[in-house]
């Protein structure tokens, strides 16, 4: 069962739609984690935005991850049009009455269940202490008002961590739109060569994450990021024939890499002579990689 990637249409820049791939479903996130697709949790508490460790759904994917999942048949796309905040505000405006009643109803049920449980616990306690005979009904122990007040004060209101609000507001879409979305993702995404690097490393079992922290395109872990330190900082794809290495950039990155126990990896897809440019999205190219680190002297 493929997971659902929600594509949020962002502000149009230069007439181009930008799409952010987001995952809202916890089970989908678990499934992806097992596939070595980790993404970045990006939901935050506005009151504690700096506490990154508590970030929650949605999970934001790299464009490469979304494309890889789709090309491997592991995900399908759904489009959420526009700003999600506005979208939810719209739903709240339209359905405020229903949502209010539903919430009230749920709360009532929850309170009733809690009351029942607490009365039963209270009765059992009195029984154990020998204050009342066994099998006394709840009514006889529960209706004195001071107890009842205490009980009302102890009821919990649960704030749910998930919501079904967004489930039914995806755009209607026809067959074939997934390919169209893939096309937008790819065209939005300037450098197809970077995807080829991603694909080769992913298929070799590395888990990739955005590399900005270490001045690269990706960082690569040999397994789950919670179990391993990353091994490699991967540079933006180079052009095989035309792009020469900047030696100062090499020195800067290889030195930094050595200081943080990583190796700096550069790669370029090897062009094949008989290849049509228009056919490039589906082709599996060879990528020539080199790994650079300080030699320890000089």
């Amino acid at each position, binding site marked *: 069962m493929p997971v659902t990637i929600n594509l949020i249409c962002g502000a149009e820049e230069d007439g181009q739609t930008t799409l952010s791939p987001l995952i809202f479903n916890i089970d989908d996130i678990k499934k992806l984690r097992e596939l070595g697709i980790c993404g970045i949790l990006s939901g935050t508490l506005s009151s504690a935005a700096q506490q990154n460790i508590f970030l929650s759904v949605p999970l934001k994917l790299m464009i490469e991850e979304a494309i890889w999942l789709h090309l491997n048949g592991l995900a399908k796309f759904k489009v959420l049009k526009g700003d999600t905040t506005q979208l939810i505000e719209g739903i709240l405006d339209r359905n405020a009455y229903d949502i209010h009643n539903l919430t009230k109803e749920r709360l009532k049920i929850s309170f009733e269940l809690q009351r029942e449980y607490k009365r039963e616990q209270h009765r059992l306690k009195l029984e154990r202490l020998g204050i009342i005979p066994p099998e006394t009904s709840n009514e006889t122990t529960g209706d004195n008002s001071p107890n009842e007040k205490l009980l009302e004060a102890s009821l919990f209101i649960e704030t749910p961590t998930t919501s079904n609000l967004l489930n039914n507001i995806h755009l209607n879409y026809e067959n074939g739109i997934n390919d169209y979305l893939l096309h937008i993702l790819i065209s939005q995404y300037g450098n197809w060569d970077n995807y080829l690097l991603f694909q080769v*490393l992913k298929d*070799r079992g590395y888990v990739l994450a955005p590399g900005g922290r270490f001045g690269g395109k990706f960082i690569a872990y*040999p397994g789950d990021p919670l179990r391993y330190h990353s*091994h*490699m900082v991967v540079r933006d794809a*180079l*052009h*095989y*024939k*035309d*792009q*020469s*290495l*900047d*030696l*100062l950039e*090499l*020195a800067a990155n*290889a030195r930094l*890499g*050595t200081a943080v*126990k*990583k*190796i700096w*990896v*550069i*790669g*370029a897809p*090897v062009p094949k002579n008989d290849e049509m440019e228009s056919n490039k999205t589906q082709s599996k190219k060879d990528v*020539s*990689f*080199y*790994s*650079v*680190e*300080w*030699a*320890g*002297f*000089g």
Partner: protein
Amino acid sequence: MCNPSSKDGLSIEYAVRTNLAHFQNWSDVVICEESLEWEGRTIKLVSGIPSEPLSNGETEDDGSPSREFLLPVSLAQYKAESLTIECLDHVFDKLCNPGTKRIILSIVNDDGTIVFYFMYKGVHKPKKN
């Protein structure tokens, strides 16, 4: 990778050889015979034996350091020498023994400093340190 016009004593291969032999205390340092013509330049490797095993280096059976191969490149201050991935592929194919895992990139600056970087073919684990 030397400028074809430079004399032996001024070539970057010679600079790397001198640095290794007299500054890093390497032994048996030679400029390799094999050369590769690449975009108007002649690329030659330098090879030698380190005074002690390198931090991530291979060793012989008796623990002594094994022979290393170095690729000299010049870091002209405003004109970086063109070193493409294609060029590196050719160096590994034509100048190195089959199965060579890595060479040492030797960046020769015009102020006399030379810095050394391991360059592994393919994706390689970082050294343990």
